[in-house]
């Protein structure tokens, strides 16, 4: 358990609650994975209501992210901005969410109009909230409006009561409020696992990097642990609505809360998958002991670990932050799944850590993570190869409700700007923000949470910073565009893409911004050379984004799909797709819903929502080719320093790949020619992908495509007709 120097008083917190609204409802058993209704809450008007889910909604949107996008579309107009009262946070599990027999089935998907991008964003997260919400009778929850004072929304799925409280006394920061909700709403310690809390923190209030923390109570550690819906600033939106927490209580967990069609089949598939993990994980990714942090040294080996704001892909200091270190720091031998039955258990934890800085200095805490992204962002990208810094910053980012990816990539950008003289100590408030400066970076983090100093400025995000630095400090906008690692306003996650054109598209063509969850094609493309032509890459950039979208529709985690593979996977026709696991998913979906889809219908389910979301982007003023363009740092060497660091590779490529002889040419000429070839290749990639996806050459879905998908809904056609006419 955590030990605080200034303990809180749950009784005092509870006594200060003032009931603003209440709804009692009848709890009905689920029907084959669905509750068939969604919950609507308006915290501005203190309204609580329900909306039915009909068969048409299920056929077109499936669930999860699909339901979220449909509800969000209906809630907003083309003029809605992220801070408009009608903007919503929508949270859903999916029809497969909450089964216990198969790993990675407890994900919630969160959507809203993003403070960072201005467009719809989706972010997936573990913890217990999504499944508990569904088992409490709701396939999704919409949170609309802006409360006048801080509120808590409480869903009591045991008794069928929903309440909105004024909540002045709770802490805002997540590690505290998640525990406080357990103290207040659980019957006793045994019951604390029945409490799932969504919260953000002070950093979400004061920056655009806000993430949402979804809790799950760890009975062994006696800590309310936190998983993050990190991307897109949804925590900022949450706090803008003056919501301190959304809490769901559900204590009736059993083996079949989803009331599935065929439990026996799910048991068979689940038991054999657990066995596969048992036999293979230690030999493959070792997820059970080090989680996603196993990737640190692999990325370094392949020159893919973003170092110093993505200038380089490897560093001799990487062993200091490799999985060997994390294996030691993580407590071993405890089930670390963020949902019941996840034996992949990548939610690793550093326990008994005494904080060295900030408002909780001296407190002893358990810290979730770091995961690969955080270790890579704080360690290599910011050049701070110190695991203790990484853990400390990880804790504070989480509790402050700050996305570690946006913070890390944002700080890396700041550091490069600092080293280039674009900003200086006068601007930063006296801080030397060169690469490698951990102490100063923690000052920035704490300032960001307090909404003070240069730390607050950093929290604007790279897109807004580029504008600020150009306008206020006279920086070269072109250089800032080249090195500012954001696309659509979202900071890049932590992979180097210079040598993988397909992965450049994986980031640039992702609907929500520069996140790798749609496609991770670097090994297929760069290492194994399995997709050499533009058409091959386009096919991969069709299939994988659609396949991975399906996880979001269903309430699933991506990791059990390919972070362990069957022993004979390499012998199958299409190893990159992991066919046996795809078959598992199809079997489980059918066993839950009683339907009879195949792997092709699976992709169609995704295509419907994916294309709907692309049109949604267009509706909000984005969703065209210009918004898919990427910073050159992700495609090639921006500076001569970068070119020289891999000079043999680049010169060889000029000759062999582009048929342009570099001999006798100056470094500047070779550097410039490399840029021309690479930028041209990205445009050709876009052409090929748009064609494959059934979009026009500007990246807009064709009306025929929407008709073919049966997604030619009146609102969709209105947007497309406006564009095409």
């Amino acid at each position, binding site marked *: 358990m955590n030990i605080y120097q200034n303990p809180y008083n749950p009784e005092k917190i509870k006594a200060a609650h003032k009931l603003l609204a209440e709804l009692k409802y009848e709890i009905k058993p689920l029907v084959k994975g669905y509750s068939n209704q969604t919950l609507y809450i308006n915290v501005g008007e203190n309204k609580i209501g329900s909306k039915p889910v009909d068969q048409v909604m299920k056929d077109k949107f499936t669930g999860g992210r699909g339901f979220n996008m449909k509800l969000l579309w209906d809630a907003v107009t083309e003029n809605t901005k992220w801070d408009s009262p009608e903007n919503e946070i929508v949270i859903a599990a999916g029809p497969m969410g909450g089964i216990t027999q198969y790993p990675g089935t407890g994900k919630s998907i969160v959507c809203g109009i993003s403070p960072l991008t201005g467009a719809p964003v989706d972010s997936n997260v573990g913890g217990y909230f999504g499944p508990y919400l569904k088992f409490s009778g709701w396939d999704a929850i919409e949170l609309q409006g802006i409360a006048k004072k801080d509120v808590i929304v409480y869903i009591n799925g045991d008794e069928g009561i929903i309440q909105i409280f004024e909540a002045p006394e709770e802490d805002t920061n997540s590690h505290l409020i998640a525990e406080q909700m357990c103290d207040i709403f659980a019957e006793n310690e045994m019951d604390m696992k029945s409490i799932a809390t969504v919260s953000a923190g002070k950093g979400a209030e004061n920056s655009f990097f806000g993430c949402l923390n979804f809790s799950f109570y760890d009975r062994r550690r006696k800590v309310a642990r936190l998983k993050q819906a990190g991307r897109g600033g949804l925590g900022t939106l949450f706090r803008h609505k003056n919501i301190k927490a959304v809490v769901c209580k559900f204590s009736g967990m059993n083996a079949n809360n989803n009331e599935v069609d065929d439990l026996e089949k799910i048991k068979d598939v689940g038991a054999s998958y*657990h066995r596969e993990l048992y036999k293979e994980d230690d030999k493959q990714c070792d997820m059970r002991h080090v989680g996603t942090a196993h990737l640190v040294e692999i990325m370094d080996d392949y020159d893919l670990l973003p170092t110093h704001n993505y200038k380089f892909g490897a560093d001799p200091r990487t062993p200091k932050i490799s999985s060997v270190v994390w294996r030691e720091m993580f407590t*071993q031998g405890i089930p670390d799944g963020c949902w019941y039955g996840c034996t992949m258990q990548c939610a690793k934890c550093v326990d008994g850590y005494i904080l060295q800085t900030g408002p909780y200095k001296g407190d002893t805490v358990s810290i979730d993570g770091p995961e690969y992204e955080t270790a890579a962002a704080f360690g290599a990208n910011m050049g701070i190869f110190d695991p203790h810094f990484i853990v400390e910053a990880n804790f504070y980012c989480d509790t402050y409700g700050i996305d570690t990816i946006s913070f890390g990539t944002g700080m890396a950008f700041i550091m490069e700007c600092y080293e280039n003289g674009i900003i200086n100590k006068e601007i930063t408030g006296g801080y030397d923000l060169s690469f490698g400066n951990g102490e100063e970076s923690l000052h920035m983090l704490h300032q960001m949470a307090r909404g003070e100093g240069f730390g607050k400025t950093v929290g604007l995000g790279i897109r807004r910073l580029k504008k600020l630095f150009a306008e206020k400090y006279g920086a070269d906008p072109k250089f800032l565009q080249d090195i500012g690692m954001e696309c659509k306003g979202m900071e890049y996650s932590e992979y180097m893409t210079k040598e993988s054109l397909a992965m450049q598209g994986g980031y640039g063509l992702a609907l929500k911004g520069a996140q790798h969850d749609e496609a991770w094609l670097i090994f297929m493309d760069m290492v194994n050379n399995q997709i050499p032509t533009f058409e091959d890459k386009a096919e991969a950039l069709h299939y994988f984004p659609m396949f991975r979208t399906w996880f979001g529709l269903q309430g699933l985690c991506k990791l059990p799909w390919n972070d362990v593979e069957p022993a004979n996977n390499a012998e199958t026709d299409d190893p990159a797709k992991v066919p046996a696991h795809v078959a598992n998913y199809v079997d489980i979906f059918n066993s839950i819903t009683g339907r009879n889809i195949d792997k092709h219908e699976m992709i169609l389910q995704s295509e419907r929502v994916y294309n709907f979301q692309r049109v949604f982007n267009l509706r909000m003023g984005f969703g065209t080719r210009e918004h898919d363009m990427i910073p050159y740092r992700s495609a090639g060497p921006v500076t001569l320093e970068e070119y020289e660091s891999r000079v043999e590779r680049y010169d060889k490529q000029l000759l062999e790949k582009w048929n342009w002889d570099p001999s006798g040419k100056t470094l500047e000429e070779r550097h410039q020619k490399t840029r021309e070839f690479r930028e041209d290749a990205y445009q050709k990639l876009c052409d090929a992908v748009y064609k494959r996806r059934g979009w026009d050459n500007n990246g807009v879905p064709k009306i025929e495509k929407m008709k073919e998908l049966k997604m030619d809904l009146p609102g969709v056609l209105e947007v497309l007709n406006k564009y095409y006419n």
Partner: protein
Amino acid sequence: MKVLVWDKSKCIGCGTCEQTCSKTWFKEENRVKSRIQINKTENGFSGNTCIQCGECILVCPVEALTRDSKGIVRLNNKTCVGCLSCVGFCPTSSMFVAPDEPIPFKCIACGICVKTCPTGALSIQDQPDPLEKVFYRRHF
């Protein structure tokens, strides 16, 4: 710690233990629901029953599996959420799952099958207590 021990040299594969077990715990004679499984092999029979090693305790997300005061690993049916993690991670594949049973089951060395075994192939024996394998590096 008392553990059920199967003696390969004495087993004739009659299935009496399996029938006794399933009848005792599930009120039906159905070997699929037995907590001891005897299977025919090329060289006779193989017997599969829990050795009370406790590996399953470490993977149970809800602490439904615990070791009792006698060292026997027991599953609390009311706490179990049927995730089957223990089934997949049992080193000896002795955590069983059967049709129509949402949660798994295992041998608790009750000894009833020992009494009905016609050849004395089963016995309850004292074994050394297992080492505690969970290591909590720091306090929680």
